[in-house]
């Protein structure tokens, strides 16, 4: 298959880039490892209270519905790049696509399949309100073991298991790497009690819990009275290897705190922070309002333990120079954005590493360090959803420029 651009990664950047390219009449093929599209954004909740809070999570749906009608963008899910070769300004990639799937039209969400599946995570839902997918990296059948438990039990016949993988050869003139980020692993900071102290969550977990609109699995709604947000967990922290600001967390925490307050009016939020970062225009107004709705404490908590009543207890150095201990119903760690290994074949050209440890250039520029290879989105540095979309527009422009140059070269 001949294509102009091969896009690696079907998150918001890749999808939006695919759309922007199709607007310019450039053919692209998008390869996504997971069985579903949208990456991290597909797990985020809409943060709107009475009004939109401009988190941008709904841009994914927008992008997907636009792409459904686009002519020159192909998408392959469940696919990985097996080999990669460059020859005379063309990139040849061999894509392996696994074929097992849940047919959405037949599935009635009875949940029997998930009960019989022997592997955790092989049947997955990216978010609680989403349809069911088979993760081909984990499904035994895809790994060559004869297990058809789910297909046999499904009363609707909605599960199609296939052993074979489909091979797709692609020749592209340019490659865009949009593989996204790794959220900071909060258990690397043991004193913050993540996974040890009940009631300590990350912003990412809270976000996906809120997506379904109810909190019940965690805490009865009327018992949620106090929430603490701890900022800069895994950002602005040279010891954890993150000597950069993750840009998004101040906005994420303030939006989540507002959303909680909107859903559970008795829930009071306290935000522990170093510095607040401007994340919206007319930030003063936004922040001024936020200061009326929640408490801001300039302190980085020393530790979080289970208190006497079983609630998580935050210890910090208080304003009046004393050690403070306050218990909260929930403690949310506002985790940062970390670089992610793009997981490309070895023969893939070496990409630049930038000053903050991400791939791609230091600048807003999307060049990847090799002619024809571009890097865009959160794998180039911490970005909000809207930043990712903006960068995909820039990437589309630079890719177009490059393709035009290549065509000129061919004519010469």
């Amino acid at each position, binding site marked *: 298959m001949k294509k102009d651009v091969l896009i690696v990664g079907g998150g918001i950047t890749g999808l939006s880039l695919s759309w922007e390219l199709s607007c310019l009449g450039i053919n692209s093929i998008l390869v996504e490892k997971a069985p579903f599209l949208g990456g991290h954004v597909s797990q985020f909740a809409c943060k709107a209270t009475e009004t939109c809070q401009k988190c941008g999570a709904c841009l994914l749906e927008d992008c997907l519905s636009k792409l459904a009608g686009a002519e020159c963008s192909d998408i392959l899910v469940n696919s990985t790049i097996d080999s990669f070769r460059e020859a005379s300004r063309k990139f040849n990639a061999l894509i392996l696509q696994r074929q097992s799937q849940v047919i959405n039209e037949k599935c009635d969400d009875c949940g029997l399949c998930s009960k019989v599946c022997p592997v955790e995570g092989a049947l997955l839902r990216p978010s609680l*309100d989403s349809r069911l997918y088979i993760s081909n990296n984990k499904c035994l059948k895809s790994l060559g073991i004869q297990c058809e438990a789910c297909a046999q039990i499904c009363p609707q016949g909605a599960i199609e298991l296939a052993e074979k993988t489909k091979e797709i050869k692609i020749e592209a003139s340019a490659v865009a790497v949009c593989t996204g980020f790794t959220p900071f692993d909060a258990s690397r900071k043991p004193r913050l009690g993540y996974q040890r102290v009940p009631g300590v969550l990350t912003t990412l977990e809270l976000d996906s819990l809120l997506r379904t609109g109810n909190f019940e699995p965690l805490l009865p709604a009327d018992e949620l009275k106090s929430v603490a947000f701890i900022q800069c967990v895994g950002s602005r922290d040279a010891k954890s290897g993150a000597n950069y600001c993750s*840009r998004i967390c101040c906005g994420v925490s303030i939006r989540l705190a507002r959303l909680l307050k909107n859903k559970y009016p008795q829930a009071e939020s306290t935000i522990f922070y170093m510095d607040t970062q401007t994340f919206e225009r007319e930030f003063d107004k936004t922040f001024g309002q936020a200061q009326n709705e929640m408490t801001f404490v300039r302190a980085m908590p020393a530790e979080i333990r289970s208190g006497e009543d079983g609630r998580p207890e935050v210890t910090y150095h208080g304003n009046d120079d004393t050690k403070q201990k306050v218990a909260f119903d929930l403690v949310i760690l506002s985790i940062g954005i970390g670089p992610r290994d793009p997981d490309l074949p070895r023969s893939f050209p070496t990409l630049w590493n930038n000053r903050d440890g991400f791939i791609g250039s230091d600048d807003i520029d999307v060049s990847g360090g090799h002619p024809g290879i571009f890097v865009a989105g959160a794998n180039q540095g911490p970005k909000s959803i809207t930043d990712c979309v903006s960068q995909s527009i820039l990437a589309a422009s630079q890719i177009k420029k490059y393709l035009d140059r290549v065509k000129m070269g061919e004519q010469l």
Partner: protein
Amino acid sequence: MNRRVTESVFLKGNYRVRDQISNRALILGGDEYGIQIADLLKRNGFEATIFVGFRDAHPSSPTLDVIKGKIEKITGFIGDFNVAIRTSTDLHEIRFGFIIAAQPAHRRSKTSSFGAAGLNKVYNLSEFKQFLDSSGRSLLNNDRNWRHIAFFFDLKGSSEVSQFDILLSVLDRLEMLDQVQSYIFTRNVKVASGGLEARYRYHRQHGVVFFKFDETEPRIVQDGKNLIIEFVEPLLREEMELTPDIIVIDEILSPADSLEPILNLIPSAHVSAPYLQPESTRFNGVETQKAGIYAVGPARGAFDQESLKADVEAVMISLFKAMPQLSDFTPKLVAHVDHDKCTFCLTCVRLCPHGAIGFHSRPEVDPLSCKACGVCVVECPMGAIEMRCGDVVPPTTEKPLLYGAGFKGHGRIKLFLCARSGLQAASRINSSLLSDVEICELTCAGSLSPNFLLKCFRDGVAGIIVAGCFKGNCASIYGSTLADERVAQVSRTLEQAGIDPKRLEFVYVAGNTPSLIVEAIFKVKGRVGDLNQFQFPDSHDGTT
């Protein structure tokens, strides 16, 4: 697409055909980025004219077409803007295809907020940076005998990341001077951009003193020739004084104030003023509500270098996207004014969120600017506007606003869903929950008329749910807000007619909140309960 259809439309004279599309862009602002945009456009086959105000510096590039003056008025639509510019000699009327607002940010000094305006030891940050840049190597002699320099950042109004970037580069320069000690008085350092945190940390570890304030802010007191900063040291909580040689204060950034004529061109721009781009995630890159007008950097509220660089190319992409539309006239759904019914009340001209309706002896909809949101169709008191797709007029005048009534089944409950939010959310709902509801797609919730809702009830629909985008997320700025108001209005009418108004429900949704729609369905289903279809009382036939 289907070119023959389009041509026939234009022959019939349904739309105002433009004789010629101008590919000349007017770029407001002649700094580095304005020139970059002009260069980029020229290289890609467009023509560009740079506009600068009387007081602005003349752009340095000699090859560019530059006009200096004051914009009096802008009228028209994409491909065909008419700009009246008063120069020092004459009033010119020039035709442009596109308008790109790329003025540098307006810097407002904070010195007067500290009572330090006009003091000779107080500098604005950008002035100071300029001074350092221009002094070059001579600075190394430190002939001014600076020892202590105090910087105020993010005090009295929050500062942008780009300001902190400038502050750090100033600190980089001052590091070369041995005897200079810098003190930063701030509320928050702004490091939310690549590499800034590392640079901030570097300076912190290399002798720059940072004071971070929470409640109290430092004051500047004049004592004879000296300036004294009085402050409460935030960690020790003790009152302190510092007598610096100079004080440098950062500035507040805002868009250029010469955007007025453009803001006047877009009726919905008062929502976003002084910025040209609404603060909504629906508007990516440099697009504004109105086709053909693009906002770069400060004009859309983005002040950092990275955004500016990206915006320069985004302008190019936006023009590329607009051009095929301009040349092909692809048929699409657009509003159409029936001039026999029109009474020139100009409601449509005042209300169109996209500035797509102009008045040239009668209201005319520009088909290329129209986003088919339907706000005008519903608001027109004479019912003189309807949506048409190419030359295909929707078959019944009963349902002028609905096109492509989607999904399947004719249930007792009708869902009117905005295509930008509700419909996307509904596509995520398990079909078993939608078995006895009927889904109708709207281009915008703003296109739903109260009369149509009443007609639905008269036709035997038991319950209706209308879903529009959350406030601030509507691509037509106030489309969903209008819909909310109309639904409330219909509810009152229903109540007067003796029908339970709870059968009608408006919900604000987003594409990723299917739960809100499910909730609304259950709510309305519960209320409607086992009620049979009911009859509208004869005296209220739903046309009120």
